[in-house]
Each structure stands twice: as structure tokens, then as C-alpha cells.
């Protein structure tokens, strides 16, 4: 049981479409500004209005901010889910609810405390507009929580002032609602509760950002000029953010012209086609999508792979197959992306774990796509992409020069006796390319049909094989250029734990918990594919390793078995794939259960 300062979990149960997101975000942001490690997870339905939605906030002074599975405080604002929500409160915890209507007796629990606040009543008394009455209930419970948890009122007021600068009436209503809840709690409850907040300075140099915004910034800074997409949750906000940043930074002040072109394509087949067309012409172009879109892009990913055209694809993964659970998170596109398309294809994957890496890896995606003249897929997910994360401040090195790979200039071509597209490979097995419009001597026909190393059409077995063998070697070389794995070792480690992406906070917390129980384990997080040799070495160093990932079929484990020589029985799985972000408990239980066997 958690008591005391800066260590608790709070869950808010709402109805979607009622304006709760704004109040919940306000709370999370205020705690962030108090300098306390915090995370906020939005567990929302695939629906616009009327279905249950939850928001979880975890506060932890030691920086453990993976999802908690037991709640110290539930704000139960959705009568439809009262029963479930109240059941989830840990013994000795608290449940706040709208007491404008009596709570069904069957929901009573002896072992928890109830905090009734007549929110609807308070708002009906103080606000006239019917819509305002509904919206302000959210801000009123936020006010009650400010009192109950000792959130810094000055910070909350400052946030309201920022949000509603220029909208005085709105700001006033919000302040009033906040006060209503605050005062009611102060007068009626024993504030603060046994768990509460106290300012820290853990967030100096940190920002609050979601992965999709960071990804869009990466694409902006990398110099992407063409973007094509088809709307899909949870990737849509990548392009929304990119559009906003472009409007801000890419409009030429003198001419009013846009140094970018975003195309909402007719489908994902078209989106990837547009990206390939733009990259074929030498631009930096990308598309953002999710699993169903990747499925549709498969054919052209093979074309780009075989004809050696760069392309950047951002896959913000969600729960599949099919429409699956589009507003829930998973890491189940890994296999599909690694080998996307028919024929022998293999791609470069970048696997960020948090928004800061989304920014860095987005930039890296363009560099690698152009360096290796091949598609690069960055696999984010809904948890990373759409939730706000406390992340280190993003940094940019002004000396950055985009790696455009081997592209021949007019002068180069002038000097070349004769240009052949797929010859003259370098140490990474990359051949120089020529762009249209540069020089007649660079002209050739790009084709997805069989071609020899000179770029000519072929159906001759040896000529065909020569080219695809080089492609395999080229892809292998990329292992030395993708981000290295993150490794953390412990003395006397008995086994290794390998993971990817947004599992990191839960796995790191789990390993600390296990270490406290004298079960130390080494940690490795894979950040890129093809696998760097240090990953295989790590596997061999340990008698066995657990692979923690969020999909049913243990896709990362399969990929490790396929792409390294490690025997199958040395790699075990810990899986969680129900659609919610991972928690340390999932990992600890999963590992202990198998160790006991």
C-alpha cells in the first residue's frame, strides 16, 4: 500500500465526448510542473461520444511511471462503469463520485473511502449554459483533486491563464468551477489525503510531449518536404502536427509560398506511392500510418526495396488484426514490417521507446533511407504516440547535414564514361543513383521487373541473383548504422531480459523489483533492425533470456531466432497484448512464473 508523498496512482473514469480530456490533461500537466515524475495514459474507446473512457495518472518520486494496475484513488464519473471502477480501487483507497444522485447501495465497499462531491448540483447552481454545466463538472472535480492531493493551485491557475489567454470569459468560468470543487473538498473532506504531492525538481530540463508530435518535429527538422497519408488512428496526429509545424516554419515570409506539400491520399497504396515517387526524385518524403495501412503498402514497399528507392514510413501501431481495437496499443506489426512485401524483402526498422527517440529516430530514418536507398520503417505505437510523456528536452545539432547517400551530380555524371544504375557499389553495397532532370547521362528506367547490375532488363538467373544478393548484403550492413541497443548490466545477473519500444519503463521497473528480491537480470532494449552483432552476443552471454513484448505471437522473439544463431530454447517470452500499456507487474509475474517452473 502506498502512502505519503509523491507515490500513488489515480484513475479517472469518464464518458468520452464530455470534455474530460481537458481537465485530466490539466491535472497531469500541473503535476509535471510541480517537478514530480508523472505519466498519463489515456485509455479511450473507438468512438466519438458516449462510451467509457479512462485516464490514468501515476506519480512516483523515484521515476517509475509505467502503468500501475491498482489505484489509490478513482474518480468515478461514469455511471455505466461505476461497478467496475469502484471494484478496481485498492483496499484502503478512495473513490470520488458525483453525489448529485445517490450511489447505488450495491456499489458500497467497506474497505474503501468514498468522497461524494455534488458536482452536477454545484455546476447547475453556478452556470446557466447547459453545455457549460457539463464541461465545468470536469474542472470542478479537478478542483476537488487539487485540494485532496495538494496540487499547487498557483500552477493550475497559471495553466488556465495560458490555455485561455484572450478568452477571458472561458478563463473565468474555469477558475470558478475549479474553486467550487476545491472549496467543497476543503470543507467536507480531510484534505490532503494520506497520499499527496510535494514539489520536486525532477523535471528540470524535461518536457511534456507525445510521440507523434515529436515524430512530426523530427520529420520537419530532417527536411521532409513531401508527405502523403491516409487518416488512421493512432497515426493521424503525426500529420496533424507536421502540418501545424510546416504552417509555422515552412511558409516563405516574402512569397507566402509553402516549402512543403502534404497530400491526403486516396488510400495507403497511394500514400506510399507518392512517397516513393517523391523520393525517386530526390526529395525527403514520408507517410504515417498504422497496421492496416502497412498491409496495403506491402506491394510498393517491395518495389522500393528492389528498385532501391528511399522511403520513410512511420507506423504508429495499434491492436490488430483487421480493425482490431484501433484505440488500443500493441507491438504486433514487427514481423510484418521486417519482411513487408512479396518475394525476398527485408527492411530497416527503427524502434523508438519514447518521444525523445521518436524525434531522433525520425531524423535517422531519412538519413538511413537515403544512405541505403531503401524503405525505412519507424515503429512507434499508440502508447508512445498519443500519450503525453515526460521526456528529456529535444536537442538539435546545427551542424547536422542530411546524409543524402550516393547521388551523382551533373558534374559527376559529366565525368562518368557511362552511368549504370546498379554498379559501382561501395563498402555498404550501395550503388550511386542519378536523379531525373540533372543530366542526360544519368537517364535510366527504374523498374520493379528483373534487372541486372547495369540496370538493364533481365530474366537471366545469375544476373537476377547477383542483384538480390547484393541487396541482402546491403541490408546486413545497415546493422552497423541503426541505433545500438541499450544495455544495462547488473552484478551476478542470472539471465537477460530483452525488450522493445514502449515496454521500457515497465521492464526497467520490473528489473529493479526483481533485483530487490535478489533476482538480478541484465537488460537489453533493441532499437533497430537488422540486429547489431551485440544483440546476438548478449543472447549468447546468458543461459537464457526473456523477451518482453506486446503481441500474442512473440514476434520479436521469432525475429531474434530467425536472424541470429541462438537456439530457440534459450529465448523465452513474456507477453502482454490486451491493448493497454505494459505494467511492471505484468513483467515481474511473467518472469517469476517461468522461473518457478
Amino acid at each position, binding site marked *: 500500500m502506498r502512502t505519503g508523498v509523491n507515490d500513488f496512482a489515480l484513475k479517472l473514469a469518464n464518458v468520452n465526448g464530455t470534455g474530460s480530456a481537458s481537465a485530466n490533461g490539466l491535472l497531469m500537466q500541473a503535476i509535471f510542473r510541480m517537478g514530480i515524475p508523472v505519466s498519463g495514459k489515456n485509455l479511450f474507446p473507438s468512438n466519438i461520444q458516449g462510451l467509457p473512457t479512462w485516464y490514468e495518472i501515476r506519480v512516483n518520486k523515484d521515476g517509475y511511471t509505467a502503468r500501475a494496475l491498482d489505484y489509490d484513488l478513482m474518480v468515478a464519473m461514469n455511471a455505466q462503469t461505476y461497478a467496475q471502477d469502484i471494484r478496481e480501487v485498492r483496499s484502503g483507497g478512495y473513490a470520488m463520485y458525483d453525489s448529485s444522485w445517490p450511489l447505488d447501495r450495491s456499489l458500497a465497499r467497506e474497505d474503501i473511502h468514498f468522497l461524494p462531491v455534488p458536482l452536477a448540483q454545484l455546476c447547475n447552481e453556478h452556470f446557466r449554459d447547459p453545455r457549460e454545466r457539463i464541461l465545468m463538472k470536469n474542472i470542478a472535480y479537478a478542483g476537488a483533486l487539487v485540494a485532496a492531493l495538494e496540487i499547487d493551485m498557483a500552477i493550475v491557475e497559471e495553466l488556465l491563464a495560458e490555455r485561455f489567454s484572450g478568452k477571458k470569459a472561458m478563463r473565468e468560468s474555469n477558475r470558478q468551477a475549479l474553486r467550487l470543487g476545491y472549496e467543497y473538498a476543503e470543507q467536507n473532506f480531510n484534505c490532503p489525503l494520506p497520499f499527496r504531492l510535494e514539489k520536486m525538481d525532477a523535471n528540470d530540463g524535461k518536457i511534456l510531449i507525445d510521440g507523434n508530435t515529436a515524430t512530426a518535429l523530427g520529420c520537419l527538422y530532417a527536411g521532409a518536404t513531401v508527405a*502523403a497519408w491516409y487518416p488512421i488512428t493512432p497515426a493521424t496526429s503525426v500529420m496533424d502536427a507536421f502540418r501545424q509545424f510546416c504552417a509555422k516554419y515552412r511558409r516563405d515570409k516574402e512569397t507566402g509560398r*509553402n516549402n512543403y506539400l502534404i497530400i491526403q491520399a486516396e488510400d495507403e497504396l497511394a500514400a506510399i506511392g507518392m512517397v516513393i515517387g517523391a523520393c525517386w526524385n530526390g526529395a525527403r518524403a514520408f507517410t504515417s500510418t498504422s497496421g492496416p495501412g502497412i498491409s496495403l503498402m506491402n506491394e510498393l514497399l517491395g518495389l522500393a526495396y528492389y528498385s532501391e528507392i528511399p522511403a520513410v514510413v512511420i507506423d504508429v501501431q495499434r491492436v490488430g488484426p483487421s480493425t482490431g481495437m484501433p484505440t488500443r496499443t500493441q507491438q504486433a506489426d514487427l514481423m510484418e514490417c521486417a519482411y513487408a512485401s512479396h518475394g525476398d524483402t527485408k527492411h530497416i526498422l527503427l524502434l523508438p521507446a519514447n518521444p525523445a527517440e521518436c524525434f531522433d529516430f525520425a531524423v535517422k530514418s531519412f538519413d538511413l533511407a537515403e544512405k541505403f536507398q531503401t524503405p525505412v520503417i519507424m515503429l512507434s505505437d499508440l502508447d508512445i504516440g498519443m500519450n503525453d510523456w515526460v521526456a528529456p528536452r529535444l536537442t538539435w545539432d546545427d551542424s547536422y547535414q542530411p546524409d543524402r547517400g550516393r547521388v551523382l551530380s551533373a558534374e559527376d555524371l559529366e565525368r562518368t564514361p557511362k552511368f549504370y544504375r546498379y554498379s559501382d557499389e561501395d563498402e555498404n553495397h550501395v550503388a550511386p543513383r542519378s536523379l531525373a532532370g540533372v543530366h542526360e547521362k544519368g537517364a535510366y528506367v527504374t523498374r520493379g521487373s528483373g534487372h541486372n547490375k547495369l540496370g538493364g532488363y533481365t530474366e537471366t538467373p545469375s544476373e537476377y541473383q547477383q542483384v538480390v544478393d547484393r541487396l541482402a548484403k546491403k541490408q546486413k550492413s545497415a546493422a552497423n548504422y541503426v541505433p545500438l541497443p541499450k544495455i544495462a548490466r547488473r552484478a551476478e545477473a542470472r539471465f537477460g531480459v530483452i525488450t522493445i519500444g514502449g515496454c521500457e519503463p515497465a521492464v526497467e521497473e520490473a528489473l529493479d523489483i526483481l533485483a530487490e528480491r535478489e533476482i538480478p537480470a541484465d537488460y537489453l532494449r533493441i532499437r533497430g533492425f537488422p540486429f547489431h552483432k551485440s544483440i546476438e552476443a548478449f543472447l549468447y552471454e546468458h543461459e537464457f533470456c526473456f523477451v518482453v513484448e506486446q503481441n500474442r505471437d512473440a514476434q520479436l522473439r521469432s525475429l531474434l531466432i530467425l536472424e541470429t544463431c541462438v537456439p530457440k530454447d534459450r529465448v523465452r517470452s513474456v507477453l502482454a497484448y490486451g491493448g493497454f500499456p505494459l505494467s511492471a507487474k505484468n513483467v515481474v509475474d511473467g518472469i517469476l512464473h517461468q522461473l518457478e517452473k
Partner: protein
Amino acid sequence: MPSIAKPAATHPSLQRNQLGLTIRDYEGSMSTLCAGCGHDSITAAIVRALWEVSMHPHMLAKMSGIGCSSKTPAYFVNGAHGFNSAHGRMPPIATGASAANRGLTYIGISGDGDSLSIGLGHMCHAIRRNVKMVYLIENNGVYGLTKGQFSASADVGSKSKRGEPNQTLPIDPVMLALSIGATFVARSFSGDKEQLVPILKAAIAHRGFALIDIISPCVTFNDHSGSTKSYLYTRQHEIKATEADFVPPEKPILAAISPSGITAVTMHDGSILHFRSVPANYDPTDRKRVTDYLLAQQSKGEIVTGLLFVDESVGDLHEVNQAPDMPLVHVPHSKLCPGSSELERLQQEFR
């Protein structure tokens, strides 16, 4: 333009255009299509048109999908980049290529299978976006490359080589394009170079997406009696709606003269297009009347050819998006990246 007049050449292949290039400079590799294939005649018309408009070979981009027709970019202008892409996907690839580099001239070659079945949606959306490109459908009513299955342009009753009649309604790319706002719509016949060359030249000058549906008989799978896409059938049922005469921008004086019975349309690049309409009152700038006329002729079983419709008033993809005149691919990274201090400033908001 060269200032010294070239001596008149006796052999046409020795004639030089404004760039000093002969027609041979616009040729490509040897065709591997069946002898007599309509597609090869279209290739010849393309070569002619590009030579006549003095296209810089390396400023041309030849885009195609998959099919016998889509193979043809290899058979013209060796000095131009080509992209023989994937079945039906050429329109988005060309759209992306154009987005990146508006400085090139795009010519897309497609087939009726490529454009009217697997890639129908893409073609429609390229039309809607008014991507500046010449878009050819080399229309033979069949899938040539996969050996003669009916395509979506096969007419009801048209017979396959084995004699089975097609029973599925056809998609007419001309009517379709007109209905979704296409800004340049033409139909021609691979056997009529006289008609096709000026249409191609006008299409190159057009402000946006220029669709040319070209009946192009497949001698191997669809040139028998009973086929409605054969040489014979087309010759017997063709009526010409317009005769287009293309006047490049360099000769404005000629263009100013507009004899009666002729419609003059000023193209985006300043060139002038003269239409001699064969049926009286045919106005190629009036979408409704063009549509009505085509429907009426279609019901009589006639194939109307010519430059059927043109509208130079609609902006292309770049204009609509306020893209700079400079191709995006040439904008330096320093102009695209806001830099570290701006990143620092922006992040003040992320707290």
C-alpha cells in the same frame, strides 16, 4: 532558339528542332511488343510530338504502371528518366514525383487494365488533384500482357478471340474524366498520327492533368472481327469532333488570327490551341455540351475522337498548395530546418 536558320532538310530524320536535336534523339530502345501492336504507333507519335516541342530529354520523366503499354517508356527518349512501376500505381507515384520536382515534364503511360481496373481510383484522384502531367491510356479492351482477358473498357457484345461476348458494362475513361472535373480530355486512335501529335503537344502545354484515351488495337488478342477495339472497327466507327492545331508560344502573330469556325484556347504556357470543330456548334470549352454530344454519339455507336474538352482556368496540384516555383527538391536544407534555437523556443510550450 538558334539564330541561324537551318538549311531545309531533305530527309525528315535529319531535321533539327530548336535544341538542334533530330527525331532520332527522341528514340528509345527497340520495342519488344508484337509487330503491329497499336502501342508502338503511339510511341512513334510521342517521339514526334516531343521532338516538335523541343523537349529537353533529361527534363522529361516517363512514368508507367505494368502492362504491354506500360513497357513503352523504354522505347522512347533514352535521355529521360523512366519509372516502370507497379500495376495501377503509376498515378500516385507520378503525383509524388511531381510534388517533389515540378520542373520536369511528366508523361504517364498506362493501359486500360492499369487505369480502369486496378488503378481506377488512383487515376480519378490524380484527375481531381489536377496533377500536371500527360496521361495516356493505351486502350485495347484487353489485358495484353496477361494474354487477352477482357478489360474494363471492353464493350458489351465485343467478342474475345475465342468468340465469347463480353457481358459487363464498360467504363469509358472520357465520360468518367469529364464527370469528375478533368481539365483536358481527348480521345484518339493509334492509327492516326496526324491527329495524335497535335493533341500530345497541346497536352504537354496544358496547365494540369491531360487525359488522352487512345484506342490502340492489340493485334494478338483483340484485333479479330467481333472486337470493338480492332483497327477495322475503329476506322469504321470513328467520327472526329475536332481537329486541333497547336501553336507554340513563340509564334504569337499566327495565333492571333482566328478565322471563323475555329475556337482558339490560350494554354497556360502562352501557346494557342486552335480547334476546328467538325460538327457545327461543338464547343470544346463547354463541359455540359461536350458531355451531351458524346452521350448522343455514343448511343449511335460512334467513337468520337479529337481534343474533346479543355479548361485552362483551374490551378494544378502545386498552385492549389501554394508550392514555390522552385522545385521542392531544390530547396536547401537550411531553409527547411528551423534550427536549434527555434527548437529551444518551441519547447517552452511543452510544459
